[in-house]
């Protein structure tokens, strides 16, 4: 990974509601790490309907997850990667794929459950998780109030947290 490598965050362009077939790819690689989404995966395979080469890899334990690195590294050009997983597993698979040379355009990610979101306090440079709906929070490290801004940093792995004084109310 280099500093400007893509990272998986809640607004990643790779996150989809449902997988779509990329006709321009030679092969479709589906990594399924979430048993709850198995119906969606079968539905997608039905859609592929033999028109494309595909490979389905099911991940059921930590060891298999570790082997994902090797799996993505041996893929050839023209492979479209589909990741179906809960957040933390999706991050691990996504990161391995990026390290193996996949671009964001070559990845679709289907998240099961909650997406994680982080805020970076620009006062003390502490990174912490925030809920999806939280627009402001308190920094766990320096205790300052933070407004969660809309800008994300790959370097800092979170959204900007603007420090503010909640006791100050503008007169106008």
């Amino acid at each position, binding site marked *: 990974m280099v*500093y*400007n490598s893509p990272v998986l965050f809640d607004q990643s362009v790779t996150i989809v509601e449902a997988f779509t077939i990329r006709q321009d790819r030679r092969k479709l690689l589906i990594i399924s790490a979430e048993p709850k989404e198995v119906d969606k995966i079968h539905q997608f395979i039905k859609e592929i309907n033999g028109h494309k080469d595909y490979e389905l890899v099911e991940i059921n334990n930590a060891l298999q997850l570790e082997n994902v690195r090797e799996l993505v590294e041996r893929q050839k050009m023209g492979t479209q990667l589909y990741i179906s997983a809960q957040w933390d597993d999706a991050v691990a698979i996504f990161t391995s794929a990026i390290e193996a040379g996949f671009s964001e355009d070559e990845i679709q990610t289907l998240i099961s459950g909650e997406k994680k979101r982080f805020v*970076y306090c*620009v*006062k003390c*440079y502490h990174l912490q998780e925030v809920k999806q709906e939280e627009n402001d929070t308190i920094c766990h490290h320096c205790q*300052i*109030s933070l407004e969660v801004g*809309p*800008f994300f*940093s*790959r*370097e*800092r792995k979170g959204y*900007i947290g*603007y*420090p*503010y*004084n909640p006791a*100050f109310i*503008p*007169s*106008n």
Partner: protein
Amino acid sequence: MFESTNLELFPYPFHTIKEGNNYRYSNDLRKLDKDHQNCVVITPEYKKQIERKRELLKEQPAVRFQSYPHTMEMQWEVAEMLMKLAVEKYPEHFQIEKNGNHWTFHNTILNETESFIFGDASSIELEPLDLIGRHFTTDFVLMVNRDDNLYLEVAQESYAALFSPHWNKGMSFDEIHGPVPFVSRTGVPLAERVRNFLLRNVLPGEPWTRINWNLMANRWDVNYETFDTWGPTRYLVNSENAGELVRLRVEEQFFYRMPRSNAILFVLNTQFLAMKDLAQRPEWLMQTYSILSDIPKPMADYKGFTPFIEPTVEYLKNEVEQLNLQAK
């Protein structure tokens, strides 16, 4: 807080507005002619500014200077160029001695010398741009050209305005300008248009410039880290004290394509002029009043001066009326 005392050296930002007195965003880059390509400038405030810049760098190194380890060679290239420009423009203040790779840079204004082995980062205590940058009042941002974009890989910034080397490190030109809310007439986001323009036109030996401006209320640097401190002070301004508290903050920007690394160096010369000092140049006062009375709200919001634009315009209106009375 220092203020410009020599108005001849103050980069007044609205010179280029020839017709009418309205300011709108545009691609306002200009190619520098042969006689104006040197960004080094020694103002009467030089010593004061250097002192403050070094204090800030010492107090908050992680806030003011950021770089990646792989940028050393690029930093040496920039340091070499800056020393060369300084010696060329002010030989009475700056000299360089080269004995093979053993270089000594003299700054006679500060009575300082820097000795190092050029290209050997272990021969100096700071990183090359951080060391040489401390002899110049300007801020420096090195944007590296990768994948048709520019990425911030080194920055030494002591006068940041809604910017932070720490936060913006590693961001592309587009990400840094994400907050810019404007699109061009053709619907292309302004930042994308400017980025493409820089990539195509800023070539080795052909630097460009533009002037960015803003208004600051009682602060000299407004970085993200201190938003909780300076955010509320913007509400202290009224039409009585705006002359003292509000300053025209002007950032004269220079863009140099580095021939070896292909990166673009942004040199930012930040100067301040208090609203009360505009009266020294009646034409500046009249034009600034006219421009500020007509600023669209999204622009004021983006620049962060919405909380005090009204009292500032009121103050300038009173000043202009006084000027008109004197003329009668």
